[in-house]
């Protein structure tokens, strides 16, 4: 009883309102140099590589990816990224760009999922092929408005499921995606945390990805970003190109629909 009283008093003084969040000078300094960094972005090196890979005959079936249907018809790359994730009847699921490219590598070229999922992320000695391919495909939607469709029932289910996954708190630290990305004007260390539940900020989950990450100097896709978010969320590991990740990407991309995608970016 006495305990509760003391707690009450402490609670009243403990959480003083956060210092008025005026313009963050550190973030402003980063922004000043962002345009310079984006103007000459090593991501372009991977874009070139990805285009080569798209056209090359590869895999057990010695086929190129030029017959891959990214949602706008076989072989149509221009604008496809801006309209993903979307539902694909041949796979009967909603797929984000990397899930779709991996699907095409399996069906057209004969690669095995297990091989592609074994080491799917870039490191200092290797950039996996899907990473360069995603960079190439994404670059072909530069300057276009995002329009991830919500027409098929499974696309609407993916949005709602993704939203529920986004807000699901669990794990050792009780975190959900929303713990960091559900409120305005917060940052981790010096890194700003956009609020992905709001349309004008959700674009920041899409813009800049795939991205050349200054840390390590590696090209990364949203599959990597979500994987590393779940690591830091203290969850177990999500499967590579799994439906969970496509659903999450559907949620944030649809929230950002109508806004312009600026192409592969550069990230801290």
């Amino acid at each position, binding site marked *: 009883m006495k305990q509760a009283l003391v707690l009450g008093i402490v609670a009243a003084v403990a959480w003083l309102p956060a210092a008025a969040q005026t313009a963050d000078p550190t973030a402003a300094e*980063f922004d000043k140099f962002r345009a310079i960094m984006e103007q000459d972005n090593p991501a372009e090196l991977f874009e070139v590589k990805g285009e080569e890979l798209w056209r090359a005959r590869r895999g057990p079936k010695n086929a190129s990816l030029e017959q891959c249907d990214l949602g706008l018809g076989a072989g149509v790359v221009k604008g496809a990224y801006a309209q993903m994730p979307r539902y694909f009847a041949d796979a009967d699921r909603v797929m984000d760009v990397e899930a779709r490219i991996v699907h095409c590598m399996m069906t057209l070229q004969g690669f095995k999922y297990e091989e592609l999922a074994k080491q799917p992320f870039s490191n200092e000695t290797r950039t996996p092929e899907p990473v360069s391919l995603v960079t190439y495909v994404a670059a072909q939607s530069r300057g276009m408005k995002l329009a991830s469709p919500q027409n098929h029932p499974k696309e609407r289910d993916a949005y709602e499921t993704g939203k529920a996954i986004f807000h699901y708190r669990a794990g050792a630290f009780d975190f959900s995606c929303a713990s960091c990305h559900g409120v305005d004007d917060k940052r981790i260390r010096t890194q700003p945390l956009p609020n992905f539940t709001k349309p004008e900020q959700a674009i920041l989950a899409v813009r800049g990805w795939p991205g050349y990450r200054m840390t390590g100097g590696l090209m990364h896709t949203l599959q990597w970003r979500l994987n590393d978010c779940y690591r830091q969320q203290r969850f177990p590991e999500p499967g590579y190109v799994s439906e969970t990740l496509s659903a999450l990407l559907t949620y944030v991309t649809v929230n950002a629909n109508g806004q312009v995608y600026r192409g592969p970016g550069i990230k*801290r």
Partner: protein
Amino acid sequence: MHDTRRTVLKGVWAIGALASAVAAGLLSPGRVFAAWNKSAFEAKSTIDAMKSLGFGNAEDSKAIEIRAPDIAENGAVVPIDITSAIPGTTSISVFIEKNPFPYTGTFDVSQGALPYVHLRVKIGESSQVRVVVAAGGKHYMAAKEVKVTIGGCGG
């Protein structure tokens, strides 16, 4: 610089290698006398590196503009823009004082380039970025501090 040139000129094999490099178009005749300065690049302090390069008497100048972030978003990739307004600028050299090997490079603009360069460098900890400009046989310098911080979750 002299050490390297002497090594290059001493052995026949070295001359042969150099000649074939020129033939391969790798080295233009214009750069033969500016061999990569090993002793400067391996110096552990800016002062030692500047001595190796013959920059001992550089004087401060306000005519060198260094554009770099006050706080770097990531020390692995720090953008630096350097412009010299000193007439007759022939080269621009960069030193990151707190790096294990401060001397980062020299950009020779004497053969048809404007006195400007953009580069991106690794800065291990908060450091002065020092720039030395050679012009008319003399050396001038300026410096700018770049702070390096922890950006993400640190995990």
